[in-house]
């Protein structure tokens, strides 16, 4: 009986620990979309965001050699090739961390979502928001990160 209880206890601990390390990095691109030809972007601040994630996304796009601005308005004032929207989810585990980041690229005229990327990282696999932004945009644009194989 004691041995059975120990086994159950070990199983529970393993399940809990495994639940803390879970990552997903995915993207879904409309086959007809030409991402290489996109040069200018506007990142629209998400309504709930108080952490300035739109600034991080615009900064990363600029670092990738694109031209990106950001703001609170849903639409840009000047024409752009794509509008970027996002959804960030946070969780608390000792400190707050970004659990999930979804980034969408949309047609400025129709709002059609032609590309989307998602990073999901549970507590023990957490990364800084800047790094989550970088990995999602790299996933969308098909950029292989340093040290990774294609």
């Amino acid at each position, binding site marked *: 009986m004691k041995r059975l209880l120990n086994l159950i206890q070990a199983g529970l601990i393993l399940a809990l620990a495994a639940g803390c390390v879970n990552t997903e990095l995915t993207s879904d691109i409309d086959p007809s979309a030409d991402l290489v030809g996109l040069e200018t972007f506007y990142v629209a601040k998400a309504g709930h965001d108080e952490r300035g994630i739109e600034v991080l996304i615009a900064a990363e796009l600029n670092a990738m050699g694109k031209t990106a601005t950001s703001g609170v308005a849903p639409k840009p004032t000047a024409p752009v090739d794509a509008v970027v929207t996002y959804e960030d989810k946070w969780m608390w585990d000792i400190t707050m961390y970004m659990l*999930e980041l979804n980034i969408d690229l949309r047609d400025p005229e129709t709002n*059609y979502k032609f590309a989307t990327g998602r990073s999901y990282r549970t507590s023990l696999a957490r990364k800084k928001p800047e790094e989550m932004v970088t990995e999602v945009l790299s996933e969308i644009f098909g950029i292989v990160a340093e040290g990774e194989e294609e």
Partner: protein
Amino acid sequence: MKSLQLVVLPFVFAALTGCAVGNQYDYRAASVSLPLAGSGELGIAVIDNRSYVLDGDKEAEFIGLQRGGFNNPFDVTTASGNSLTQDMSEALGIALGNSGYTVTGLQIASADSAAITSAVAESGMARNIVLTVTDWKTDIYMNMTLHFDLLLEVITKQGDTIASNHMQGEETVSGGGIGASQNSRTASAAFETKIGRLFNDPEILAALAN
């Protein structure tokens, strides 16, 4: 010993069913953005052509499976209590409205071409959007798998199909498997993507251009 059984039994029940029982998703919450802008009147119909619904194995509000701890399946249904195609029609109607069209819903009971021709003739509208759903269900255990088979047609009031686009497959959808509300959002997002891609076809876009 009896009290131990009383403690253990709920855990066994929970392990068997988990959070798998009574899940509902809301496709009306889908925020579909279509790759087109236009104007004018459109008739729209979404036809349920799913074999498991037509043969009575599942109800029209069935939208997928949620599996319990031992892979035991439980039905997932629409949050509205309406049929899946009604919810899809509502979301599609809003999307086309946002794209500038004036939309009228058509009632078409079957994917039979005579039924479609008769309904569009009766509508009198020059262009009609007909979405035939031959398969649409999600299946969640550790991940969400989407099974889909969709045919989008633009049909004239004479019953002529002037454009069509077909999409069929089975794929793992990122973001599923965490909780019922998250799964509902993930399933809706998959619907948004598939419908957008169906419309993003040169033939369909040309047929809907003014």
